[in-house]
């Protein structure tokens, strides 16, 4: 009993409250997204559980069970069994092409009766655990090539398997481990290079080559002008600047080439739609356009709970899963989405704060893994609903409808909270 009390006092209730708030708000919005005044059902109606809102209620209930299980397991289990957990999910990912079923064009689901599970969702947690365990090894130094390669292999293996099952969006989430690695000492050039590459890629798509060239010349010009005089006098400076510009322009050219020649039709279209939603307003652009209409029509205060017309009448596809943010935007307006964004950033901040409190490097690294995964989902999901990111079917953590998604995020988060509640028991290395 005293153990129980200790546990209660050691759990970070701020994080738990935010989690509960997100899940509840998410459920209310799913309820609204599928709400139909003509065929309105109450929670006690058995048929209610055929609807997304009803099912989500089941997922929430089962998530509570999962939380209890996680807290019942010994905290040392996660570190000790990380390789086995990782290996089992790699195994599942290998088996999926043979035993899985296809849902929404993605051949990445296992079906048990009426329940479908997407192993890719859980592979993130497994990878985070193994990566954290590896970083925890005393001899590991992420500025060394060898260690970087091993870390990259741990991340890359599930990623490749997920891409093979046509879930590029979920695979890209693994890029978020850069945040964990960065915090644990990966030289800043790597995330810098990553962000730089993405920036070049996006600018190459959005801007004409001449605009990019002009911008580069202006920027290098300003940098040189602001540099000390002796640098300005060196011939080398100008050669470097020229090489820099030529190099970037070459990359821009490569991106153009890649988009137009290498990418498959549907991938290219997804990117084109990002640049110009009117490119295919009834097809791919439809989702973005309808999503923006739904959010944009919300105004400052929103249309009110259950009053949204866009999300309710199926104008926004996937409204309760990937596009749940539209419902929030339409019914709760700018005020509502601002609260969600601010709370989410606060949530990430709290998790980072907790991670830095850990004595064990495993727990801290894992914590940053959680932060990275959640942030990536936050970035891409909200970004795509407002037309700032290409559409990659990935959910908004805790808000979106879906058993696999809610379970996996719950497991991901509560393993960390479990570790956090035992931080005084951990050995500091």
């Amino acid at each position, binding site marked *: 009993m005293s153990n129980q009390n200790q546990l209660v006092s050691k759990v970070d209730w701020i994080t738990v409250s935010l989690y509960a708030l997100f899940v509840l708000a998410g459920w209310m919005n799913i309820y609204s997204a599928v709400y*139909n*005044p*003509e065929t309105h059902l109450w929670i006690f109606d058995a048929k209610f559980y055929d609807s997304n809102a009803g099912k989500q209620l089941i997922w929430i209930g089962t998530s509570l069970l999962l939380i209890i299980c996680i807290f019942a397991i010994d905290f040392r289990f996660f570190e000790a069994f990380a390789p086995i957990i990782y290996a089992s999910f790699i195994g599942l990912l290998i088996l999926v092409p043979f035993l899985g079923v296809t849902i929404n064009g993605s051949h990445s689901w296992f079906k048990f009766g009426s329940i479908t599970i997407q192993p890719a969702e859980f592979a993130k947690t497994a990878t985070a655990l193994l990566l954290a365990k590896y970083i925890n090894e005393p001899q590991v130094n992420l500025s060394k090539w060898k260690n970087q390669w091993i870390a990259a292999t741990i991340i890359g293996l599930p990623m490749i398997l997920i891409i093979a099952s046509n879930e590029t969006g979920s695979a890209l989430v693994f890029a978020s481990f850069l*945040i964990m690695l*960065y*915090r*644990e*000492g990966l030289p800043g050039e790597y995330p810098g290079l990553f962000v730089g590459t993405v920036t070049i890629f996006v600018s190459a798509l959005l801007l004409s080559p001449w605009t990019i060239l002009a911008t580069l010349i202006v920027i290098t010009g300003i940098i040189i002008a602001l540099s000390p005089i002796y640098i300005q006098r060196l011939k080398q400076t100008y050669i470097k600047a020229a090489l820099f510009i030529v190099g970037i322009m070459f990359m821009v050219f490569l991106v153009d080439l890649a988009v137009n020649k290498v990418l498959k039709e549907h991938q290219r279209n997804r990117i084109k739609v990002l640049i110009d939603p009117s490119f295919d307003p009834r097809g791919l652009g439809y989702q973005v356009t*309808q999503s*923006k*209409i*739904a*959010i*944009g*029509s*919300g*105004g*400052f205060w929103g249309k009110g709970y259950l009053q949204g*017309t*866009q999300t*309710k*009448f*199926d*104008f926004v596809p996937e409204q309760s899963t990937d596009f749940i943010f539209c419902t929030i*935007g*339409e019914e709760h*307006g*700018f005020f509502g*989405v*601002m609260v969600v*964004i*601010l709370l*989410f*950033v606060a949530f*990430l*901040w709290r998790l*980072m*704060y907790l991670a*830095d409190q850990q004595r064990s490097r495993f727990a801290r690294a894992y914590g940053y893994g959680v*932060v990275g995964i959640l*942030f990536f989902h*936050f*970035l891409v999901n*909200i*970004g795509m609903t*407002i037309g*700032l990111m290409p559409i990659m079917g990935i959910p908004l953590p805790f808000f979106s409808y879906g058993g696999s998604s809610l379970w996996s995020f719950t497991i991901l988060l509560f393993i960390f909270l479990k570790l956090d509640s035992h931080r005084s028991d951990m050995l500091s290395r």
Partner: protein
Amino acid sequence: MFEGRRQILLLFFIIIGLVFIGKLFFLQVIDDSYEKAADNNAIRKIIQIPFRGEVYDRHNKLIVYNTPVYDLYITPRKAHVRDTLQFCQLFGITRAYFDSTCKQAKAYSRVKPFLFLKHLSKEDFARVQDAMVDFPGFTFTTTAFRTYQSKAFSNALGYVAEINSNSLQTQKDDYYRQGDYVGVSGIESFYEEDLRGQRGVKYRMVNSNGVEKGDFKEGRLDIQPIAGKNLYTGVDIGLQEYADSLMQHKVGSVVAIEPASGEILTMVSAPSYDPSLLAGRNFSKYYQDLALDPMKPLLNRPPSAYYRPGSTFKLIQALVGLQLGIITPSSVFTHAGAPVKCHSHNTSHNDLHNAIQWSCNPYFYHAFRKILYEDTQGNTYERSAQGLQRWSELVANFGFGRKLGVDLGNEKKGILPNVEYYNKVYKGENTWKFSNIYSLSIGEGELVVNPLKMANVAAIIANRGWYVPPHLVKAIGDNKVVDPFYKTPVSVGIDAKHFGVVIEGMKDAVLHGTVGGDGKIPDIVMCGKTGTSQNAKGEDHSVFIAFAPKDNPKIAIAVFVENAGFGGFAAAPIASLIIEKYLKGKVDRKAVEEKFMNKSYLPNVLSVTGLRPSKTKKDTLK
């Protein structure tokens, strides 16, 4: 190690958060186009067009009404035709039409209704209605065609057609949409806002497939359609048809007015057209023919054609002279000294009565000269200006040079030359005098009128000095609303005592004067005045204005027959027949009736305009 990196990451997260908030602020708060897009998206506006008002004649006979027609729509997802052959036979369509239309419908949408067959008649609808239970997924919607009880009233009634793009763009209150029907001319156009009623709007919520999901806001925003108002005209449709039949093979106009009320009894424009041609699905086909027809069957001549009044204007000349005190009934003018000839009459005692009876040109030449010069000062130029000023002020009271305000959109003002007019024509003040403008004395020269104005002159004389603005519609809607403008008598500023001699002259013009035997009605005292309107097109137009009976007049009329020569030849007999028909309900002079119904003045018209009637045009001419 690396503790500071948390701050860098946090900064990165915050920047992303702010970028999102900024973008959302733009989407949700600044840019309102998304709100409009959302309304168009989810809420479908269903327009309900009410029935257009009907039109009745003065005896409450229905002359224009609506015939419902039925459009058949198919909803592919629900549609199921077990026996295609039976279906095709039922609707009288070919298998090929059935297949191709079904294909089009599916290509359009599986869930939205698609127009399958247009304009089924009421009879067809009744025939297929019971069989439709075997064919789910087919629905009917009702629209209506304008239907005309008579073919004789088309020009004044006007027609209804799809609104053209020009009117669509220039409309003031933004009521019409592409494809809406609107009154284009005649009273259909003038009373458009009464006739059209109030369009209803139903807001239905639809999902992204266009499938309806119920009323928007429980229908609180819906507007019920209000049926158009009926128009009750003063037209006697029987008389209209009779007048129309007399005007066949002729170009011209007939306008008859009830003097006491200003109600137009008849308004004929010849040649005319069959109004049913312009109501229905073949509008564009027939409209082309009618619009290009050189005989201009679409022109409503009574309010808009240009004519000189000719000798009928002498009546006004006489009244103006009497009112100004410049002539009296006993004033005598000889034929001598006038550049205009008198055609033939006894000049032993050429007083005003005689001059009207015989339409004496020299008399009115001298009278007009006296009107200009008597009691005026200065040289002949200055005196002409002063005289014309007082003359034109009085003539204007008869409606010359201005609109009478008839309830038709195309009424023309005509021309009443006054001092400014001639100053402009002769480029300066005191540059013209009587000798330049004496043609006015006998209704020629620069005077321009239309038949409606001259019928109103007949009504003014019948009323001895006043008129009610002529109008076709006497009451609007079930409440019989009347525009006070059409109830208020207007005085022309001529004392009633001056009318006696004019009316007596008109009576004798009919009995023993310019009107020939065909224009006399044995048992009705008609007062009339012939006119011969000179025109640049060739043979003179035949003009006649009259009212009857002499005491307590019931009808005032103006008849213009183009290129038919002297007024007594064609216009007077036609006017007499119409008056007889109206006052007696029948015409006893069958020989005269037959003569003028069959008489054609078209060869004159065609020879002056250089036209040959073509085969295709023939059936539009009556």
